[in-house]
């Protein structure tokens, strides 16, 4: 039933988006890839240097710090957000009367820019005017909370702020998942003799696997891309203590004039993300076809 126009129109309509993506996403990725094997410093240049930039990259202490931080931050971020989100979702699933009020309160941080979040928590965690100072003012003089100024602990402050921002969203995902559980399965479990906690642990939570997966994908990709939050919260510091690959890339490309190395770091970030996303997207699309 398709005439000539209907045969070509779909392709024509899709073409602009497709072209834009091909050029500005995949073309740029290729370009960055090329940059990463070039001798670009302050400006792009054409000299081919093989994997030299990558070697330089991995020999940099800052990069090792950045990767380590990503591991720590990303791991904690994903685990805490998932557990907290699931926990809060289960609580909210207990027919809470004030749910309509509480749920938006848990969720609103995700509407904020990471810059705003970082800024707010920066003060909150600042020993001079934030939590520590308040505790002192309230009489608890020995209270100490200087993580944000501490080289070893600063990365955990990023975790705190990031969890505050995203856990509400994960909670909403789990809540939707919990609500999607067929009521009759719960009844069957009750007749079988299972009570409250058992029903959750043996039946409902295992059914949440797809939600865990979705949450993991979203959080992992946010963690790898994290830039705004770190810049606003700690600026990468103290020193370089909260460096993450995203901040590393930016500084090496634009302020340190080592574009090749910066591009290499960006490529590494890409590989990390794609190794998670591509299998996920592929299996989702294939699953849909069935």
């Amino acid at each position, binding site marked *: 039933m398709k005439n000539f126009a209907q045969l070509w129109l779909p392709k024509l309509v899709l073409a602009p988006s497709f072209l834009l993506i091909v050029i500005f996403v995949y073309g740029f990725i290729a370009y960055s890839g090329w940059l990463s094997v070039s001798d670009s410093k302050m400006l792009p240049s054409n000299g081919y240097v093989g994997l030299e930039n990558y070697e330089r990259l991995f020999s940099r202490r800052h990069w090792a710090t950045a990767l380590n931080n990503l591991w720590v931050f990303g791991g904690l971020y994903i685990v805490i957000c998932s557990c907290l989100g699931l926990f809060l979702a289960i609580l909210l699933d207990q027919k809470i009367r004030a749910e309509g009020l509480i749920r938006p309160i848990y969720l609103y941080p995700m509407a904020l820019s990471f810059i705003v979040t970082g800024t707010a928590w920066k003060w909150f965690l600042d020993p001079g005017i934030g939590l520590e100072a308040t505790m002192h003012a309230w009489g608890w003089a020995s209270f100490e909370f200087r993580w944000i100024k501490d080289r070893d602990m600063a990365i955990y402050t990023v975790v705190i702020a990031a969890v505050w921002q995203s856990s509400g969203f994960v909670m909403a995902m789990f809540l939707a998942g919990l609500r999607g559980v067929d009521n009759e399965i719960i009844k069957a479990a009750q007749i079988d003799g299972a009570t409250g906690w058992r029903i959750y642990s043996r039946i409902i939570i295992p059914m949440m696997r797809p939600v865990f997966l979705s949450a993991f994908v979203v959080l992992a990709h946010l963690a790898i891309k994290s830039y705004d939050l770190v810049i606003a919260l700690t600026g990468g510091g103290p020193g370089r203590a909260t460096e993450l690959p995203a901040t590393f890339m930016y500084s090496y490309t634009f302020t340190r004039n080592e574009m090749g190395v910066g591009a290499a770091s960006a490529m590494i970030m890409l590989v990390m993300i794609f190794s998670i996303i*591509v299998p996920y997207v592929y299996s989702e699309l294939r699953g849909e076809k069935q």
Partner: protein
Amino acid sequence: MSVPSQDNAVQGSRIGRIMIYAVLVVFVIYYLTPLYVMLANSLKPLDEITGGGMMDLPRAYTLEPWRQAWSQAQIGVEPTGLRPYFINSIQMVVPAVLISTALGALNGYVLTKWEFRGSNFIFGMLLLSCFIPFQIVLIPMARMLGLMGLAGTTGGLVLVHVIYGLGFTTLFFRNYYAAFPTELVRAAQIDGAGFFQIFWRILLPSSAPIAVVTIIWQFTNVWNDFLFGVSFADFDSIPMTVALNNLVNSSTGVKEYNVHFAGAILAALPTLIVYVVSGRYFVRGLMAGAVKG
């Protein structure tokens, strides 16, 4: 199945219920405290701030920090406050959201009702583009914008946000239209409707729920963006988030925290308002699309 009552709650004891509520309240405090701190301290004169007592309510309420943040704070070269940057943000966000949503709708329409060989592959590529680290396109995009004469302009930022928002908008509309009965399209074809007519008169009118979700999502993402703003904008086009960061991080001398707080809230206000007004629909729609993948 006609059981009206949802019987899946834990039939808990009284103590259990009280504990549950207690924990929930603790977390309400956890989520609200930073906002409270910002709000309360934005209404204090500077001497109250430096005097400590972050959690206290202002002893002397003043809107001066807000006025400062809006129109007098030193951010760029001139002490203009955040107002011009607010306008920049709006000029950037509105076109970006509208264009990317419209394109997303069309794409979703084609990908679900007019599939052809390779259309799934194209969708996969679009989907993947949602997840790339944006850092990777900074250098080439900067060059490209320069070549196109769009460097540092709002138009350039609009283009950037449209391109990198296409993946999400297409995803949302595609998932939504996938659930839309194809029989309606076939019936319209039999009635003689053409490609665009079917879109315009059958799919689009029923697209309100997903359009709301998409617009809110795009609005939030584009408004809150920092990376593209800090990389591609010039004074004429610097958006709110970048300006806020400059305000907060580059102040020399006495840090006027109250002004910073006021500025942060100003920066967050549009997305917060959007969220408060329509958050319910947003979450509902997002759940339908996001959990599916």
